[in-house]
Each structure stands twice: as structure tokens, then as C-alpha cells.
């Protein structure tokens, strides 16, 4: 439980830090509202031309969008800040200060930074999801709710593994600032169920960048499209992703040589 206690500690410190800057809440809310507005405009445009997109009705796609925003918030609060810190620490040589601490390096590097206000997206995502569920014809039972929660956690862990692997590349290639841009770009594809994409893209978005597991699978759980097999596959692949990313991080770590510091 030590990693969790550590994470909680850093979370509290980070939250206290961020909470000093209250105006950022409103700025973040405005940003989220703009993004939501654009997203809704696109949905409106599409459904003005067609009644359903590849079998997904408007409320079902709204649910996908809700999960997408929600997961984007989780990434923005918990995953991305620490990974960006890790990246800049490796480049600047200040990673030394992490290595000298008597804790698991990976755990420490993964929980050090959080950005509380990005959490607005989590709230916005939940509201969108609520509206979508209200519009869906199908009723939502406890089994679906649990499956949704499980799929969401698995998805978040996979996205974390992906970020860790990509950030680890910084041990070899120094300038990887654009990784964040690349991820943001690719993450936009999660706004739509991956089932609409052509085969090669669908496979890439499932196993290369695990957006299918992070967004589409939880959304499938809510819209009663999820089979137990898919959920089992997600869990299995999630474990593999965690193990592989940890191994890769350790290999990268050997490459590290502190500059200055």
C-alpha cells in the first residue's frame, strides 16, 4: 500500500498548491465549455445528414464523447503532468533528485505532479454522460455500471503505460516535447467509437495507442455493446501493458546519466 500512500501524499500537496490559484478554475471551465460546444456542433452536423453513424445513435455517440472528455480529464489531472515532469527532468539532468530518494523510481516519477483544475473535464464528462444515459432507450443496471467502472480503470492504466513507454524514450532521444502534441492529436480519434475506423487504424488505436480500451470499451459498457470477452481481453492486455512498460522503463533507466545537477 506504500505506493498508494505516496500517491495520496503527492496528490494532497499538489492540490493545496493548485487550489491557491482559484481563477484557473474559471479559465479551465471556459476552455472545457468551448471544447464541449465544438464537439456538440460536430455531432449536430453529422446527425443533420444521417440518422445513425455505423449503428451508433446520437445519444450513444454522446456517451462516447462523455467518456472521452472524462478520460481526458483523468489524463490531464493524474497522468500527463507527472510524465511531462519526468521528461523535462531527464533532459535537464534533475532526474538525479528522484533517483536518490529511497522509493521505487517508477512510482515516484508517476505520482509527483498533478493538476487539479484539469479535473473540471472529469465533471463535464460526467454531466455529458448523465445526459447521454438519460436519452438512451436502454436501461442501465448495476452490472453495466460496474463493467463501466472496471473498463474505465483498465483504460486509464493502459493510457498510463503508453505515456510511460513514450516518455521513457527520452532516455535515448532528448527532444520529445512533441510527444504530447502527438498524443493529443491521436487522442482526438477517441471521440468516435473505434469501430468506425478502417481495420489498420482500428488495430493501431487498440494495441498501439490503447484509445479503444480507454474510451470505446467503457462507452460500450454503458450502451450494452460490451461482451465479457472484450472486457477480459482489456484486462489481460492491461496487465501486459503495465508489465512491459515497467520493464522498458527499467531498461531506459540504465541509459540515464545525470548532466550537471
Amino acid at each position, binding site marked *: 500500500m506504500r505506493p498508494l500512500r505516496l500517491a495520496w501524499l503527492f496528490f494532497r500537496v499538489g492540490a493545496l498548491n493548485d487550489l491557491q490559484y482559484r481563477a484557473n478554475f474559471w479559465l479551465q471551465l471556459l*476552455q472545457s465549455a468551448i471544447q464541449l460546444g*465544438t464537439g456538440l*456542433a*460536430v455531432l449536430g452536423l453529422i446527425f443533420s*445528414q*444521417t440518422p445513425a*453513424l455505423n449503428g451508433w445513435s446520437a445519444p450513444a455517440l454522446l456517451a462516447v464523447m462523455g467518456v472521452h472528455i472524462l478520460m481526458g480529464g483523468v489524463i490531464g489531472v493524474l497522468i500527463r503532468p507527472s510524465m511531462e515532469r519526468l521528461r523535462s527532468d531527464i533532459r535537464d539532468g534533475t532526474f538525479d533528485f528522484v533517483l536518490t530518494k529511497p522509493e521505487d523510481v517508477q512510482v515516484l516519477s508517476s505520482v509527483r505532479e498533478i493538476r487539479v483544475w484539469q479535473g473540471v473535464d472529469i465533471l463535464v464528462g460526467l454531466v455529458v454522460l448523465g445526459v447521454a444515459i438519460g436519452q438512451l432507450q436502454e436501461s442501465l443496471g448495476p452490472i453495466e455500471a460496474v463493467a463501466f467502472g472496471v473498463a474505465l480503470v483498465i483504460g486509464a492504466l493502459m493510457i498510463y503505460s503508453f505515456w510511460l513507454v513514450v516518455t521513457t524514450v527520452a532516455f535515448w532521444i532528448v527532444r520529445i516535447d512533441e510527444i504530447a502534441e502527438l498524443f493529443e*492529436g491521436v487522442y482526438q480519434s477517441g471521440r468516435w467509437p473505434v469501430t*468506425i475506423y478502417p481495420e489498420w*487504424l482500428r488495430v493501431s488505436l487498440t494495441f498501439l495507442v490503447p484509445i479503444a480500451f480507454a474510451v470505446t470499451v467503457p462507452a460500450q459498457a454503458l450502451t450494452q455493446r460490451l461482451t465479457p470477452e472484450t472486457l477480459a481481453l482489456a484486462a489481460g492486455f492491461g496487465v501486459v501493458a503495465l508489465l512491459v512498460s515497467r520493464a522498458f522503463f527499467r531498461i531506459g533507466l540504465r541509459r540515464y546519466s545525470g548532466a550537471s545537477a
Partner: protein
Amino acid sequence: MNATPIRLVSPLRGLVDVYLQEMKIAVAQQIQYRAANYMYMLGMVAEPVVYLVVWQTVAAQQGGSVAGITAGQFAAYYIVWTLVRNINIVFTPYGWEERIREGRLSAQLLRPLFPIVEDLGFFLGWKPVVMLLWLPIAFFLALIFHPVLNPSPLAVAVFAVSLLGAYLIRSLNQSSLGLITFWTTRVGPVFQLYIAAELLLSGRLVPMQLMPAWVQTLANFLPFQWTFGFPIEALVGNLSTAQLLGGLLAQLFWIVIGSILVRVVWRFAVRRYSAVSG
């Protein structure tokens, strides 16, 4: 005393030299960071591919076309989009925010040069590198999505010129926007509003024909569509000669407006500037 006299060059020649040097620096710098450049470009390709797949799906469901646009035309539109988007990478307001917040503008103010010239030159110099890196991406996208386009020679020429026009309009507008940071230090929300307006009113999100009529009318009074929709349509949209040349004129109009705006905003903005140490 035999001091060599300082060789004076005309202001225009001097300015051209500055541009050329900035461009050279940009080429040299960006060629070094090929991997980073590619990551950036691939991230950017995701956006149009998503739009493209969605609209091709809709087109397939509607019996081949949406609002008269076929799947092949959608492919052409969004593949050309990727080039236009790359040409449209300019110095962002976030760059201005950093420059002003950290006081790095002080050094630039000492130079006998309007600071925007530097940005214009540098990002222009980046473009040849970007175009080179773009070719393989376009090739693969074309293999996958089967674009349909048959532009006339005039259309190709207008397209080439319109790329420069789009670059200038977007640069000037974003510079003006960046200058807001002289007052606010946080430009994020304003910039996001700008991007949202651009998405909806420029043809960046969807070809403008798909937009409701009132949106199209609104777009006619704004600069956005001349930075995305027009260059793309020039190449893929089978525009008439009058539309092509009229479009270039419209771009020129917005370049003039943008230049005046930057000058005026700059004049007021720079008075607000103060730096600690620097």
C-alpha cells in the same frame, strides 16, 4: 584615421536579408530535429483522418455522397488539408505569452526590427522542411483513402499562391492575438475561442458546404475561411476562374487588414511592457 565606412544597405534590402537569414536558421534547426518534427506532423494528421473517416462513413450510408461531396472528394479535401494545416503553423499566442511573461522581449526590443518580422521569417523558413516531410504522409494517405481531384493548371497556381496568403493571414491574426498578453499574461482562453471559431468558420472541421447557410454567410465576413477552406477548395473544389482570382484578392484584403491591426495593437501594447531584470 582610415576607418572603414559602415556599408549602408537600403531598408528594403536589409529586411529581405533578415527574412532570408531567419529562414536559413529555421531550415538548419528543423532539419536537425527530424524525429520531433515527424511526431508533431503525425499528431496533426490524426485530426483530418478522423474527420475524413467520419464523413466517408456518413457518405457511404447516404449512398455515396453527402451534400454533393463524394467519398473520394472528401479524401482529396482532407489530404490537401494536411498540407494547408502545416503551412498554417505560425508563432502562436502562447509563444507571445512566454516571451512577455519571462521578459525575453526586452532583448528583441533593442533590435531595430519589428519583432513580428523575426517570427514571420523563421516560420516561413520552416515550411520547405515541412513540405518535404509531408510528401510521404500524403503518399500513404492517398494510397489508403483514394482521393479524387483534377485541378486545372490555373487552380494549381492559385493554390500555391494561396498557401502564402493563408500563412500570412494566420500569422498576422495570431500575432495580434498574442499581443493581448501585454495586458492579461494568460492568453489561453482567448486563443481557444479563436481556435473554436476557426474550426467552425474556416472549413477546418468540415467543408463549408456542409455548414448551415447562416454559418456560411457569417464566414463570408470573417478572415477564417481564407486560411483553410479557400486554399483547399482552390485545388480540389473545381472553382471558376473568377472564384479563384477573387479568392486571392480576398486574401490580400485580409492581409492588409491584419497588417494594420498588428501595427495598431503593437503601438498600444508595447507601452504596457515592463520587464524585471531580463
